[in-house]
């Protein structure tokens, strides 16, 4: 439906199409008969906006604009305009698609100054009248400051291990609580039905990063340690609360004993029934199980949810469309990660949600 046969020339530097190879679609922010403005994640976990710019009878022209966490938050909250986002970008990449939308042709790196005719209006805010439901939901969930309080003797491997474990737990809960997001759902479905025909628990904790926009990731805002100290994070508070619930079970001696007994008895059950992959997180191939075994595995999944006080998660977990064996493997993988925090929690070297550090007023 073009009124001209060719697109205006844009000056810039040609780049290789591998620039796009690791971009992951996260959500559409504006759409009408298809996407007009979408949020992607880049190779280095940076946020990118894909914006439709122009068309000819044979191709569409798109722009890729990097956007900071702060600007993305402010754009979603309608406090800055799309024009502001254009003008804040250090570069913009344009590319073209023809009949094969997955082929990004003739990519050029340029700047917004070379794209004046595509520059949005001054008042190009993401108002609710034109934004997608996905955009509105992204905006509604707001991160808050949260402290991982630290105390006592800490070694360099402790400082590496605590945030890494915490990030993996956070990622797990993010996935389960954001199944309504198409990108999250598609990623989890892909992880659950990957090309090996199996289910990799490892990827459950890492693969979701590509579909978690920066505004939902746990960002470090402050690190201080002089025994006591803290790592201050900006994160989604409801996910932190979920981790606190799980952490209370692992820190409490009686609850922990129950969980360990569950873990040991599940291990015995796997062994007695020749089910492999109890603690192998990379090779969870689908195997044929008898109805009796399936029933028992479902009972074990239910029991784990009760032990963790997560009964309200049961429905989301079932929505993953993987069998009870894979569900249980994923839960055991979560448990092994959570258990890594016990030495810190049990000795008060790690406090979730509070810091012992007395902040002196300036």
């Amino acid at each position, binding site marked *: 439906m073009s*009124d001209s046969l060719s697109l205006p020339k844009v000056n810039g530097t040609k780049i290789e199409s591998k620039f796009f190879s690791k971009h992951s679609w996260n959500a559409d922010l504006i759409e009408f008969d298809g996407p007009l403005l979408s949020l992607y994640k880049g190779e280095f976990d940076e946020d990118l906006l894909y914006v439709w710019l122009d068309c000819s009878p044979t191709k569409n022209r798109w722009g890729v604009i990097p956007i900071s966490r702060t600007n993305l938050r402010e754009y979603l909250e309608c406090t800055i305009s799309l024009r502001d986002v254009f003008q804040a970008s250090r570069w913009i990449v344009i590319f073209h698609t023809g009949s094969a939308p997955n082929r990004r042709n003739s990519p050029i790196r340029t700047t917004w100054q070379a794209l004046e005719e595509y520059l949005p209006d001054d008042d190009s805010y993401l108002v609710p009248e034109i934004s997608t439901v996905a955009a509105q939901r992204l905006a509604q969930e707001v991160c808050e400051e949260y402290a991982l309080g630290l105390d006592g003797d800490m070694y360099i491997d402790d400082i590496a291990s605590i945030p890494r474990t915490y990030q993996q737990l956070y990622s797990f809960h993010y996935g389960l609580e954001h199944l309504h997001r198409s990108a999250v759902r598609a990623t989890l479905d892909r992880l659950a039905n990957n090309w090996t025909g199996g289910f990799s628990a490892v990827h459950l904790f890492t693969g979701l990063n590509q579909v978690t926009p920066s505004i939902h990731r746990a960002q470090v805002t402050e690190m201080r340690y002089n025994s006591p100290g803290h790592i201050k994070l900006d994160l989604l508070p409801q996910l932190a609360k979920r981790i606190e619930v799980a952490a209370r079970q692992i820190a409490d001696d009686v609850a922990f004993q129950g969980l360990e007994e569950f873990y040991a008895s599940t291990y015995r059950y796997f062994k007695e029934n020749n089910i492999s992959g109890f603690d192998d997180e990379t090779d969870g191939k689908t195997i044929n199980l008898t109805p009796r075994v399936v029933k028992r595995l479902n009972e074990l999944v239910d029991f784990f949810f009760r032990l963790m006080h997560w009964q309200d998660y049961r429905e989301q977990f079932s929505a993953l469309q993987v069998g009870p064996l894979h569900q249980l493997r994923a839960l055991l993988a979560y448990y092994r990660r959570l258990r890594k925090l016990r030495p810190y929690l049990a000795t008060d070297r790690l406090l979730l949600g509070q810091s012992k550090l007395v902040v002196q007023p300036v």
Partner: protein
Amino acid sequence: MSPAPYRFMTELSEFQSLGVQCPPAGAVPRDVLAWRWVANPLTGQCFDPPAVRNPTRLLEDPHKACASWALSLHLSHEQSLAAFKGLEKKIKKIRKLFGDHVANVYVTQADGVCTAPDRSGHFDLHQYKTSAVHENIAGMSPIPCPIP
């Protein structure tokens, strides 16, 4: 009596195998005067849904959603212009994409099923195979530039 076959019956039936109801539950035949953005003069693509338009604007698989097999319409002229105005503030070349006219079209129960309008008055029409909604244009007017 079995329901009339849809214009894109094969594609819609694929959603069923994925456990997705398409057209969505709640979509019903209705008689309504609706507005659709078009080019002037009309082109062959003016009444094609996004999934079959060429070049396609659907970059990712998840976009091959049920709605991409339907025609977008608005309930009123005002709502149609308001939506266009909202988009044009951000996407400057939108007239090249959707056209620069708005047509009012008689949609009848014989044309297909309509989804419930959203708060901006937008709804989707999943056409029956026999629908000739593009022949039921009651009038066409240019979209003002700028839209007041």
